[in-house]
């Protein structure tokens, strides 16, 4: 991928472009993009996560108070609902989520089943404080998932022990607290991490330039594209081993993958759900290479469609629908290729 000829070619192009300019043009102001992405996309994704994690907490409390099939289903639905904004935040895994240990607390994998069984069989009071002090592999989305679904997705209300209900409620309370903290750390009224993005290039921001902030965002997109294409899909698929499938208990993997690609779409197009002004990285790219902009948007939509077109569960398709899985994987890798070969170089030259 690192052919010297390509590098040389790029050098020459830039050299020509730069030498032709005789006057210094003022740097373009990317504030509209950075403002929209941080205020409307990132902050609203975390707000949604906070709200839905709180709803999951309520649902697991209700399940503990009144264990019945309907409440179990509500809790499972609430888990998947909270999982959606989280997976849609994985296209920007920088800042507090990365620096303050929140990612491992929210989304550790795999579950430490041996320790979990020892906790459940032990006598510790299952409070949020107790769980907050445990390793990430004893809490977060996947521990909740394991408890809600069991290993074979056949778990019924009668299969739960009283301590499992307690653990679920406490674990969901910690998840809700982590999600609230994540939102608070970004929010202007709280930790105000958002100021780093809004004031990129100014004193006090960790970004020495607006370009550096845009590079961070674009890099983060390629990281998640890589993780989905070469990790989350590839590991269970290439090794034909579902113990490597991340959300295998809930069979939520297809939604996980699609939402990860949506996180790319959200940052690229500048929109989360109904929020945002459609001023995302796309606006920066379109001004410079309209065809590339259209191509990436098309590739993103194609990848989401291909993931959702995989028949049945991902686990089943790994063995019985290799062509559909392979097609989705190829389309995700295409996004990664475009980000790395075309988008990142273009942004690095801003």
């Amino acid at each position: 991928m690192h052919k010297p000829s390509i590098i040389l070619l790029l050098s020459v192009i830039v050299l020509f472009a730069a030498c032709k300019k005789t006057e210094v043009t003022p740097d373009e102001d990317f504030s509209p993009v950075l403002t929209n992405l941080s205020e409307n996309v990132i902050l609203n994704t975390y707000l949604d996560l906070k709200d839905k994690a709180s709803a999951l907490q309520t649902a697991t409390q209700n399940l503990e108070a009144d264990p019945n099939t309907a409440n179990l289903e509500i809790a499972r639905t609430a888990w998947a609902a909270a999982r959606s904004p989280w997976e849609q935040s994985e296209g920007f895994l920088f800042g507090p989520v990365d620096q303050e240990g929140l990612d491992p607390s929210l989304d550790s994998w795999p579950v430490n089943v041996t320790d979990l069984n020892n906790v459940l069989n032990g006598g510790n009071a299952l409070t949020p404080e107790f769980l907050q002090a445990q390793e990430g592999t004893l809490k977060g989305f996947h521990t909740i998932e394991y408890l809600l679904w069991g290993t074979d997705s056949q778990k019924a209300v009668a299969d739960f022990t009283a301590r499992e209900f307690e653990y679920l409620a406490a674990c969901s309370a910690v998840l809700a607290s982590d999600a609230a903290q994540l939102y608070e750390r970004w929010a202007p009224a709280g930790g105000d991490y958002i100021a780093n993005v809004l004031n990129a290039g100014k004193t006090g921001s960790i970004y020495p330039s607006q370009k550096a902030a845009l590079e961070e965002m674009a890099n983060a997109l390629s990281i998640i594209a890589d993780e989905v294409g070469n990790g989350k899909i590839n590991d269970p698929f290439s090794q034909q081993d579902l113990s490597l499938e991340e959300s295998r208990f809930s069979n939520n993997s297809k939604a996980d993958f699609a939402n990860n690609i949506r996180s790319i779409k959200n940052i690229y197009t500048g929109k989360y759900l109904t929020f945002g002004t459609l001023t995302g990285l796309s606006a920066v790219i379109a001004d410079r290479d309209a065809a590339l902009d259209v191509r990436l948007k098309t590739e993103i939509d194609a990848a989401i469609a291909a993931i959702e077109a995989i028949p049945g569960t991902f686990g089943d398709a790994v063995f019985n629908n290799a062509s559909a899985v392979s097609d989705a994987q190829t389309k995700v890798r295409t996004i990664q290729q475009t980000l790395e070969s075309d988008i990142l170089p273009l942004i690095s030259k801003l």
Partner: protein
Amino acid sequence: MMNTRLAIPALTVVILLASCKKETVEPDFSDDYKAGGATTIHSAGPDAYTFPLANIDGAGLARHTEADALFEQQFVTAPAIRFGGLGPLFNQNACQSCHIRNGRSQPPVSPSDQASGLLIRLSVPGSGEHGGPAPVPGFGGQFQPKAIFGGVPEGKLAWTEMQQIVQFLDGGTATLTRAEYRIEEPYQPLPQGILYSPRNAPPVFGLGLLEAVPEEDILALADENDADGDGISGKPNRVWDVAAGRTALGRFGWKAGSPTLDQQTAEAFSQDMGISSVFYFPQESCTGQSNCTGGIGDEPDIARETVETTAFYAMSLAPPAPRNLEDPQVQRGKMLFLDAGCNNCHVPTLTTGNHPLSALSYQTIHPYTDLLLHDMGEDLADNRPDFEAGGREWRTAPLWGVGLTQVVNPNARFLHDGRAATLEEAVLWHGGEAEESREHFRKLPAEERAALLAFLKAL
């Protein structure tokens, strides 16, 4: 969270500058920008330490990607379907928990701080097997404050902070803070006279290049008894090489206590994560302790290949290029760096020899280290010997990429125990053989001190 991708080197800027200004002769910085020779990547953002060698081939890149996944993998208690073997005692459950974004870590801000990458090496006076540190009965060679569920950790980390004020010649002052660490609530009484060495997780990029520097080149920089009388010794550490079964030159770790990346990685699995390995460290690190229970099988936890693949990650991570070298303040700073004699230990340029990973071979690199031990004075001393490294001696820390430390992790701290919040504090802590250089810095006017720091920031 995987961090593998390729950066297109920004050679462009260099070529551009050189060709657009033909009429005047500008200093040529093109070589200085190549911190890692052809391996150098050009990124100044928060993921600057996460790129593979720029010149790595397809097979190397595939292995790097596989290794990246292992570096970030969280391990769990055995028995487990996947990634079992954690503990019974440990510091953290994944490599990246300490090596945050592959950079420096930070000491804990509170006793329950989970994000810290600080650990405490322990020993009793004297030397142990193969001349290494003598383990503490009941605690081993490292303090492990965590245990798998139901287990008994070795104790709790506690500390007392101490401050001292440094006065600059021009009147300004700087306040330096350090922590003295101790173990509270030990699971069994601690023997008297234990030696503690706090160690903050160092950055892990560029290590393959340092491994590829020929031993004779490093030894040529050594001056153990200061025969040339310049006040600077430079002493090689001689440590036990597990794979070779003999003593070898130490290169890695704060006191150069490990000879190879494979062994350094196996030690980290063993000591930091409680994960035993085939061939390197087949026994649990807590073997022989009364709290070494649970999660133990007879077999080592991970295969030899798992250790070596994980080591490949650090081996194949590229150093980032410096920035802003043309800036007059940075140029002035570099001159002051040389004037102060910082380069006597922070040797700017080394050359690699042949390495099995060919991308690393025969590169001219600018790591700013001699990989040798130096007496750093009483204030930095841990007073704990590590093979031939004495209690006041530390290996010269590489300075490449140091200016990006807090871009990568705003909470990151400098020096072996993370006591320095800024590069200025790190400079001011230097003593011993570096005392003269530190005094040179202390006596500079503010704007010249700022220039020297601007040079470090540009690296």
